[in-house]
């Protein structure tokens, strides 16, 4: 599956889509395919302050539970509650399934974006990590 050029990616396999002072976060297609069938998603709460590189929740598949890390800092404004009853949506389309949306107070908070991978760098990273 092609990775959207509009997103930025972490080495821990989350994607972030930023528009202005708001954005959304999900996990990558590679992440969902290596996890397998996802059975539970632990989301942050609205109003939570997430910090770049810090844990904000977890995703559980039939194989394992994996921690999720925020790509950039911000305040959670919306969570994808539909995932509570239909976590399989992530398996179906990880790139379009956001987990939470967030706001930042000012553009200064978005400086960490520059340290993230763009789509082609992420694809290279994944192919190095998997060795194929």
């Amino acid at each position: 599956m092609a990775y959207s050029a509009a997103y930025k990616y972490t080495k821990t396999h989350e994607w972030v889509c930023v528009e202005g002072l708001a954005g959304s976060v999900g996990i990558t297609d590679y992440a969902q395919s290596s996890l397998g069938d996802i059975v539970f998603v632990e989301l942050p709460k609205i109003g939570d302050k997430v910090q770049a590189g810090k844990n904000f929740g977890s995703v559980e598949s039939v194989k394992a539970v994996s921690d999720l890390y925020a790509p950039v800092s911000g305040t959670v404004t919306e969570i994808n509650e539909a995932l509570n009853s239909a976590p399989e949506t992530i398996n179906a389309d990880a790139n379009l399934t956001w987990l939470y949306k967030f706001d930042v107070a000012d553009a200064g908070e978005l400086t960490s974006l520059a340290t993230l991978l763009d789509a082609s760098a992420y694809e290279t990273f994944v192919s190095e990590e998997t060795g194929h």
Partner: protein
Amino acid sequence: MSTMTAVPEVEAATKFVGTPKKVSTHVNQNEGLIFEKSSPGKKAYRLAELDVPAIDAKKLLGPALRTDLGAMPELSEIEIIRHFTRLSTWNYAIDLGMYPLGSCTMKYNGRVNEAVSRLEGIAEAHPYQPQALAQGCLQIMKTLEDALIEITGMDAITLQPAAGAHGEFTGILMVRAYHESRGNARRKIIVPDSAHGTNPATAAVVGYEVANLKSNAQGMVDLAELERMVDEDTAALMLTNPSTIGVFESDIHKIADILHAKGALLYMDGANMNALVGKTRPGDFGVDVMHLNLHKTFSTPHGGGGPGSGPVACKAILEPFLPKPIVVTEDDGSLALSFDRPQSVGRVRIFYGNFGMFVRALAYILANGPDGLRQTTEDAVLNANYLRAKLKNAFELPFQQPSLHEVVFSDKLQAKNGVKTGDMGKRLIDYGFHAYTVSFPLVVSGAMMIEPTESESREELDLLVDALKQIAREAAENPELVRTAPHSTRLQRLDETAAARKPVLRWRGQAETGLEVGTPAKEW
């Protein structure tokens, strides 16, 4: 990276070519739930006539008297016996065949353990027996404690924790109490990404922040990264040695030094002690506190309810924090339980722990003796390396270092045909084995983790080798057969995803379970 396209050449023993055959089909493949077999009024007991004045329970209990007992199954005695005996024939057990489950050390539970634990004075002992009349039991605990201290090279021990994760919890509580006694509990515990999932869970439950230490390319602790992470706020590192890929952390003393330089402690998960007993001692390579799994290393029952037992051994600096009571020797030479432990983390288990397991573990230790235990370790390592040598052409070996008591392959060669580790594990059931450990450790994609233990003879190991080679061949020639396995079991492939997403945890009558009545089990 070079891509391997050739399918590995795998010769399979002729005895496993074709579909494996079961000896017979059970007559009782479709045993219902005990609730479904119930009919009103049946009883499996007859009480003697009342020979004391009858008591009106309603008067005694008032509104607390329960009249509706809910859905209790009603059956006759022979029906109950047949029901559970039939269910028991569906079990797989170590007495039926090998459990090559990596990281679990599913070894033979010697009959001598059972014989000893059934001696009348031991089996009939009561936890409230006065200490003067329980000297034998206390002596068993003391002797086991001394033996485990000798084996681990530590200074003190508690036998209380009920299993491995409970031992971790106890050990990290002690770490916390130790740091608190020095004025600062600290905030962080470091856990490698290859660790058992219970390690980070333990740290979190005890109130620590978990810092994830990424393994290096060899799957081992990255010393430079560790050095960078350890600071004055680090309470401990939780390390499994040998690691979960079955390789000894040869830099373990450097790891200990890095931690100790910052006042942090080294916790060792003793899950893999079966590779170390009689060969090296955690106490000698810098470990401050660790747990043992009597149900792994010391041959007490594992799985099926055990119960487990997870003693925690520690260095002298942590001794004041051990759970209470502890067994002490009085001036007159008698043994007693001491509760006078002001810095103790408290009791972590009712009474003294799973005493029956102490008896079995001690029987195992004494029956083997020091040389026998060392031989056990050597045989466990030999067996794992035999499997590694026999199977390395059939499956990818992600880490090349010499392995100890277990070996981790991956499904990389078979995954090209869409056959994953879980599929091959399920196919192994058709060949009469329990599956190996699938998808763990997480540092290996598609892990197939195999630990034969010392219990298996060469003949048994060869059966497993032949079965796995045949499965590798099937994965190349007929992947669908493996992807849909198992085929010879009572029920075929279960929908694990639906079971996790929409679990049915309680029987509420047939109408509500959503399961079809009389779903035909696969007769084969």
